[in-house]
């Protein structure tokens, strides 16, 4: 605590004489004496406070005369040291306590204060004398510890060691307290740890490496999350969490060839498996996926007994290369539920068809016997190449079987994205009673009944390569879920326009020629398909008109304008003839009738040597020329024109800006 300059206020006597004494009269003296105990005052404050919320300092008055402190009122001020402006002011008191020292706290807000140095001052005055004490402190920002980087290998194989590196830095103005690092991994295996790292001073960095060998036991995708919390001047701070993902894959092995086991033809799938004390709460009816892709599904369990159970899950060994589970052992208390993720990975050479994969479930009571059962996950596998989009689907019954929910994922090929594509799925008509029972969301879709199926067309505007997009659908009151095995999916990469609009006629000449002459027909067509295509032009001749190059071809790219010329010769008979022009491209064709006018042969004008033109044609040409000349000059008059004056004005302003800034 800093002490103020000593006030030696021994006593204050103030004498008031009411009047001068008169001769012979008695003398009367009125006196009022106030005695104040001498004291010093000081302000207690830390040297640095974070600029957040409020700041609390204290002031202490101490007697220097061995007497009890006299009650007094004073003022507390906070002054900006650089500007000398008072930013906070409040009254303070020394009450009658009968003791020789008095200490009290005072709290003030920092909302109107900036990061700089301040003086906290307290002053007491009485009878023209004053004593004060002061102290300085600085307002600064909190410590600000951020995760600079969080890295780990993006791929690993089963059983390998993972190394995570986390870099921290304190970008704030003050030192942090010890840092708590919360590090967790979620995925097929989960992991959680809380590490305590040393404090960081302003600007200081630190690197932490975490090496784990128990987080790659199961194939799958994992997400690691790092978040920190720390203390800064009594306030708990936290940073934005940082995450990364990594994929654990199985070492290459040649597993046994799975046995194709089509489902029963009974029309409905068997009910959810019931084994003693354990219920399957969620089991997909059907999961479909393309070869060489991974489809994620899940199975739900609930311990319906009143004892804690250990549940073991085993995939039939014949299918272990096809299906893996996120865990093989689950501890469940009474009425506890859990979901186990199932990864279905059909290889590139897997025969297409329907696979029902047995999952053996064993429940073991604590200190009791064992119960077991078998459930089946049904997968539909279809063929596709690596350069084709992957469509995977999952279907499950929810709400006690009253709603069927489906998820369809579309993965763009690795080598190219999808553009203007349409996902078409055909669901069997027996799956729903009415078209209104089917809801589709996620993509812009429409549903029609076509060929004894519900045809759902969903538009995909643009999907970059290797990216995934999802569509969801639900069916109220599904009547025959197993009929979904007959569902089909297709990605159509045609333009969403009707095929005829892929070719658009941009222009065509309809010539008027004189008999026995050669003319030219020019046709332009805009190709708006999504991939390059050959465009074929065919101008069919008529008995009166001969076409020299009646068939022409050109390779057209999307949005390219193709122009072709045809040379025609005609017989002398005048009239109007229609030639059929056929233009075709992949999935589209266009037909147009081209009118050709043949005028009668006119005698030439021997005096001028120019071809004969009727008078009305000459007048028309003259008027058109006049209009063209007027339009040309008018256009020049209104068009943008260079003005040296304006340019000069702009340059002068530029120089003025430079000069005066």
């Amino acid at each position, binding site marked *: 605590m800093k002490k103020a300059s000593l006030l030696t206020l021994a006593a204050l006597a103030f004498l008031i004489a009411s009047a001068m004494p008169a001769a012979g009269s008695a003398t009367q003296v009125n006196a009022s004496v106030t005695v104040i105990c001498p004291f010093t005052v000081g302000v207690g404050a830390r040297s640095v406070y974070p600029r957040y919320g409020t700041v609390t300092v204290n002031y202490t008055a101490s007697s220097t005369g061995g007497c009890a402190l006299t009650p007094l009122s004073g003022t507390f001020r906070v002054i900006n040291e650089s500007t000398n402006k008072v930013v906070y002011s409040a009254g303070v008191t020394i009450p009658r306590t009968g003791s020789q020292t008095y200490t009290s706290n005072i709290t003030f807000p920092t909302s109107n204060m900036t990061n700089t140095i301040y003086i906290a001052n307290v002053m007491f005055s009485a009878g023209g004398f004053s004593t004060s004490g002061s102290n300085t402190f600085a307002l600064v920002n909190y410590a600000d510890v951020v995760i600079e980087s969080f890295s780990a290998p993006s791929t690993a194989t089963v059983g390998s060691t993972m190394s995570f590196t986390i870099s921290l830095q304190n970008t704030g103005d003050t030192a942090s307290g010890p840092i708590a690092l919360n590090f967790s991994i979620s995925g097929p295996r989960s992991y959680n740890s809380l590490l305590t790292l040393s404090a960081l001073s302003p600007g200081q960095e630190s690197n932490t490496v975490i090496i784990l060998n128990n987080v790659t036991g199961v194939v799958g995708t994992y997400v690691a999350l790092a978040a920190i919390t720390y203390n800064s001047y009594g306030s708990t701070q936290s940073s934005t969490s940082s995450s990364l993902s990594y994929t654990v894959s199985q070492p290459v092995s040649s597993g046994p060839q799975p046995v194709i086991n089509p489902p029963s033809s009974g029309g409905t799938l068997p009910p959810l498996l019931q084994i003693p004390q354990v219920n399957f709460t969620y089991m997909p009816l059907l999961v479909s996926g393309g070869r060489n892709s991974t489809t994620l599904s899940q199975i739900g369990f609930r311990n319906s007994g009143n004892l804690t159970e250990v549940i073991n899950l085993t995939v039939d060994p014949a299918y272990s290369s096809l299906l893996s589970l996120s865990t093989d052992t689950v501890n469940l208390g009474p009425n506890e539920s859990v979901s186990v993720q199932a990864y279905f990975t059909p290889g590139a050479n897997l025969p297409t068809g329907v696979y029902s994969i047995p999952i053996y479930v064993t429940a073991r009571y604590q200190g009791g016997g064992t119960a077991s059962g078998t459930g089946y996950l049904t997968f539909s596998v279809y063929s596709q190449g690596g350069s084709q989009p992957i469509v995977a689907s999952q279907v499950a019954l929810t709400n006690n079987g009253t709603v069927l929910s489906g998820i369809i994922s579309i993965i763009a090929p690795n080598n190219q994205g999808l553009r203007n594509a349409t996902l078409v799925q055909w669901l069997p008509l027996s799956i729903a009673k009415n078209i209104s029972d089917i809801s589709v969301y996620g993509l812009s879709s429409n549903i029609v009944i076509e060929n004894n199926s519900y045809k759902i067309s969903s538009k995909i505007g643009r*999907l970059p390569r290797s990216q995934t997009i999802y569509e969801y659908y639900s069916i109220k009151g599904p009547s025959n879920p197993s009929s979904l095995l007959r569902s089909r999916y297709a990605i159509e990469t045609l333009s969403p326009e009707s095929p005829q609009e892929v070719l658009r006629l941009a222009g065509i000449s309809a010539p008027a020629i004189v008999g026995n002459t050669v003319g030219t027909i020019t046709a332009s067509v805009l190709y708006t398909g999504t991939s390059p295509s050959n465009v074929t032009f065919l101008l069919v001749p008529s008995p009166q008109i001969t076409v020299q190059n009646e068939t022409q071809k050109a390779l057209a790219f999307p949005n390219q304008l193709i122009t072709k010329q045809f040379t025609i010769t005609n017989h002398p008979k005048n009239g109007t003839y229609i030639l059929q022009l056929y233009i075709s491209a992949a999935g589209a064709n266009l037909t147009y009738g081209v009118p050709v006018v043949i005028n009668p042969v006119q005698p030439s004008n021997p005096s001028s040597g120019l071809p004969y033109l009727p008078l009305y044609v000459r007048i028309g040409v003259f008027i058109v020329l006049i209009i063209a000349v007027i339009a040309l000059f008018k256009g020049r008059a209104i068009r943008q024109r260079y003005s040296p004056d*304006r340019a000069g004005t*702009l340059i002068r302003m530029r120089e003025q800006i430079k000069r005066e800034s």
Partner: protein
Amino acid sequence: MAKGPYIVRISSQKGGVGKTTIAVNLATVLSMLDYKVLLVDADYANPSVGFHLGLENVNRGFADIGAKRVDPKSVIVTHAPTGMHVIPGRVGGKVVYPSISQIEWQFKILREENYDFAIVDTAPGILPFVENVYLKNYDEAVIVTTPEMASCTSAIRLAHVYDTLGLKHSLVVNRMRNKRYEISIQEIEESYEGSVTGAVPEDEIVPLSIAEHIPAYLLNQRCGFSEGVSRASKRYAARVGGRYASKREGMSLWDRLLTVLGLRKRNRVLASVEKEEEE
């Protein structure tokens, strides 16, 4: 800057010149050219990128990243028709301008993302209440102006600020009507000390595109506006390279023929771009 995307600041000293329209369509064209693009709405007071792209209901924005309220990746949304990523503005809530440290944090996040371009649409002028030093985080500033005296003067003033800070800048002239009373490209080139990278005509497609929430370039790639933006975009594509970065872009067949025959003075805009690329 060696790391991260090429960060472009779309700016102007005056409002209403079409910054957001240029930013949205510039990002659209670059995205359609298969560049990885992040479009950021950094107009804290009046964000409008969302209205252009149909993302007006996404009430998170760049400010939330600066305030460290959210995971940065959760703010990024994908614009489905183009595949580009967008950080729209926060429409609701109190307008809070970021501090220098918050801006530095925002750019740190931007630099960490794996994009070819980050197109940042900003409010008119320089961000108030903070010093201009944050501008050094950009790789280039695009000044958008209209061909009239007040707007051009403001653009020159803004260019001077950028010159003072050593920030590379270029000019896009928007809403050109080709009228006698408006300032010509030649006058702008003579007075503006930088490269004029685009001359974009006034086009009815723009208000239509805003009403439809679809970038004008997607509505009609052959209209005058889209062709102007496309030419400008390919010049910016030249900054990072790639097969679409053609310095010949912007010259019609007729122009090239006249130039070859020596009957036409070479396009000043094109010449300045080529000169810059050669340097």
